[in-house]
């Protein structure tokens, strides 16, 4: 890991320096109305171009990225972001198009949008997609608005509830609330303390009634378990008049194997930044396309891209559409990267992604269950969850293991999620990771487990080699300092 570098760009500022050049304009100066002007100028940094390059290069060194090392962050599918995708997406014939250019001048980019819709629909077994949603949670919000619109179009206004499993991603209940629904939690199957995150069908039957608008599910779920009874669940929900929403965060291990549409899901979102390799960007821009059955197609958000003859067209808001959810057509440059990936992988390699991500997860799980508590023994899909250390005389926590991993240049798993386990460590080793990488991770995890017994202080102090050590997070919340000037006031 890099050395500490704490300077802010504002601390590099020297009056009179500049990092830009502009042509000299022959146009005369026009006056501005004094009454409309701000009193003080914005205090932006004054730095040279090279200052900027060196500063942000040093800032970058403080990050762990997937090209540097293993990144088994559960439910995030941190797979390789192919370079060719980036290269083709940077073509100025894509990046310099104004969103209101006439359709005849943007047929290439519309073809990409259209064919991506088609491919996602085929892969997920649905009729069509809108690529407008900007991220997974945005897709959820949009999907839930479609569920509401569907019921309202039938004159059914009493369906105010959305069922969400207790193992679901936090965005699921949050999206349901944002879309104006009440959240009803359905329990996981548990034996004693050990829950596998799959839906308890008896409990589902209890919570299903004519006020339920739909259910949100991830399949495989956040414990990596495939919902074996999905067909029965779908029937139950449909018989009760509800719809099924598929959270596509965990689509990777069923690519080419099984399709949400065939399972009975009516609506999906897919995270292009997870399953289809577009860069996560430190938390976006992602893309969260929403797919629907034929019956729900009229409710999709506008604008809609369609094909008429040989021409690709962009339509405005149709009469049943939920309306607009983005200013234009979403994060379309992200879509271009996903399209490039889909064409590179093709039909012939799709299933290998599912198989190898599943193989990797089970291999790591089986290799480490001697040292970490494994609540669910069955074959998992692309990810699985440990519940802390197995032999733990000093009471070390998942967080301690996670922080110690940082010293070995590996990103820790997702910790303390799902909420089913007190010491949850959710591990997802994507298909691009080789056996050698996994073996190295396994060795380190075992070493840490041994350390936990013999040298607990090291774990408690870890990380020791990162640019900064453990942080005082309480201080940040108690006295929020959220901009440079807040530091000057101290």
């Amino acid at each position, binding site marked *: 890991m890099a050395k500490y570098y*704490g300077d802010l*760009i504002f601390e590099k500022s020297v009056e009179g320096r500049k990092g*830009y050049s502009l*042509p000299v304009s022959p*146009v005369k100066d*026009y006056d*501005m109305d004094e009454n*409309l002007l*701000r009193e003080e100028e914005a205090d*932006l940094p004054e*730095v040279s171009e090279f200052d*900027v390059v060196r500063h*942000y290069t040093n*800032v970058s060194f*403080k*990050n762990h990225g*997937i090209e540097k090392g293993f*990144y088994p*962050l559960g439910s995030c599918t941190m797979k390789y972001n192919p370079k060719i995708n980036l290269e083709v997406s940077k073509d100025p*014939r*894509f990046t*310099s*198009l*104004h*969103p*209101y*250019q006439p359709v005849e001048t943007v047929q290439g980019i519309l073809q*990409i949008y259209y064919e991506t819709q088609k491919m996602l629909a085929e*892969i997920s077994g649905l009729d069509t997609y809108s690529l407008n949603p*900007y*991220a997974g*949670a*945005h897709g959820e919000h949009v999907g*839930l608005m479609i569920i509401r619109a569907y019921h309202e179009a039938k004159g059914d206004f009493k369906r105010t509830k959305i069922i969400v499993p207790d193992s679901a991603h936090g*965005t699921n209940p*949050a999206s349901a609330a944002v879309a104006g629904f009440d*959240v009803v939690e359905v329990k996981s199957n548990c034996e004693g303390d050990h829950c596998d995150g799959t839906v308890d069908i008896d409990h589902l039957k209890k919570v299903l009634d004519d006020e339920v608008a739909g259910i949100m599910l991830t399949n495989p779920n956040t414990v990596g378990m495939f919902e074996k009874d999905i067909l029965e669940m779908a029937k139950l929900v449909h018989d009760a008049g509800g719809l099924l929403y598929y959270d596509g965060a965990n689509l990777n291990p069923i690519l080419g*194997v099984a399709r949400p549409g065939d399972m009975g899901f009516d609506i999906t979102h897919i995270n292009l930044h997870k399953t289809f390799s577009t860069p996560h960007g*430190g*938390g*976006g*821009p992602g893309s969260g396309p929403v797919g629907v059955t034929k019956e729900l197609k009229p409710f999709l958000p506008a604008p809609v891209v369609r094909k008429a003859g040989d021409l690709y067209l962009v339509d405005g808001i149709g009469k049943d559409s939920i309306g*607009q959810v*983005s*200013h*234009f057509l979403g*994060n*379309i*440059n992200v879509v271009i990267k996903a399209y*490039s990936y889909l064409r590179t992988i*093709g*039909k*012939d390699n799709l299933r290998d992604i599912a*198989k190898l991500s599943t*193989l990797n997860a089970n291999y790591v799980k089986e290799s480490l269950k001697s040292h970490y508590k494994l609540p669910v023994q069955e074959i998992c899909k692309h990810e699985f969850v440990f519940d802390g250390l197995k032999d733990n005389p000093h009471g070390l926590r998942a967080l301690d293991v996670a922080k110690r991993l940082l010293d070995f240049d590996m990103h820790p798993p997702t910790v303390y999620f799902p909420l089913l386990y007190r010491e949850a460590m959710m591990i997802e080793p994507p*298909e691009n990771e080789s056996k050698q990488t996994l073996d190295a991770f396994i060795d380190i995890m075992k070493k840490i487990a041994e350390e936990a017994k013999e040298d607990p202080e090291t774990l408690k102090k870890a990380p020791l080699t990162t640019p900064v050590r453990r942080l005082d997070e309480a201080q*940040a919340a108690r006295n929020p300092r*959220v*901009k440079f*000037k807040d530091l000057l006031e101290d």
Partner: protein
Amino acid sequence: MHKYLPHTEKDIEKMLERIGVSSMDDLFAEIPDALKGVDLDLPESLSEIELREHFERLASQNEPLVPFMGAGAYDHYTPSVIPYLLERQEFMTAYTPYQPEVSQGTLQYIFEYQTMITELTGMDVSNASMYDGATATAEAMFMAVKKKRKKVLVAATINPNVLNVLRTYAHPRGIEIVLVDEADGVFDKDDLAEKLDEDTAAFIVQTPNVYGIIESLEGVADKLQDNKSLFIINQDPSTLAYLKTPAEWGADIAVGDCQTLGVPLSYGGPYIGYMATTGKLMRQMPGRICGVTEDVEGKRAYVLTLQAREQHIRREKAKSNICSNQSLMALHVTIYLSLMGKKGLKEVQKTSYNHAHYLKSMLEKLPSFEDPFEKPFFKEFTLKTTLDPDRINQVLREKGYLGPLAQGRFAEEKKDLVTFAVTEKRTKEQMDEVIRILGAM
């Protein structure tokens, strides 16, 4: 195996053995047979050479035009340093900074971004970004509404796409959107006073507005405050190099789209919405916020803070469902504002301002154009024309230009209004050519 997949036959064999199953199929045994075995109708994989050829064909089906249109997407210059730095794998391939010790890079630029947004808007605190300006405005609306105040007033002069997004978000929540009438190209302050009542959660106004006109917001904040309603300003942040800030107008929440800070047009995205608010409302704000703290050795460090507002902690009680946002675009904006700095941003904006004023003054001399509003504007302006807007666009397109926005696109009764946008990238030669072409029509 595909080049992205490293497993050899031997690897697979060993791994299956460790797992204790005999074949890959055993790993999928629990999936019902009824679901398996679908033959997908997808194209076969392309080699990199074939993919490049395919993309060349696709790109050649696009014809980038030189824009004299804005309408929410503006053609400002992107310095070469920005894509270079954005592509560093440390920034581009990382995810949400949940492990702050190895995410100080992301956290630091978010902190710098927040600082710059607060400098531009004058507000106390900014979040780490929203998807776009329209959804940021909708999130501001959610921040404002309360159980007993579910009416939101929106200036009719707002960009219609932003209004559409507000309507979409409002409907399922039972929020009532009421438009404040337009008078002479700006919102009608008398109508605002009339419609403001005890149910009003907020008033939303965009400046410069859909015509490019700078709204005068004098006295609005007081009126809203007296009524305990929030004041939400949607403003193009680049204009804040010069214009009075949302804070100076007394806004409670400032939102907008940072596309104007050098983000490429890219056919509509990715862009980045911003949101900033007062210290008082900080804990009501959606999205991520980065704060400063120290590590155990006392070194300055950055960390996501006030997370009790967020979905991964509060689930259905969260302030918003936002998770992934537009983080890398926040870095884009941060680097752009670092390069431009205090003076450069002003220079870019002043050139855009001058060029827009030059173009307008020349077009007004033509018999086919007149200014129906005569109000102050920044880099976008609206004229009434006796020409057919479709014809204008067709003729300009033949010369490689994207002509003005036809306001008739949004409202039939505005079909004789056209809105031009001019940035620092448009040269005098280009403007003179457009003037010549339109003069000859």
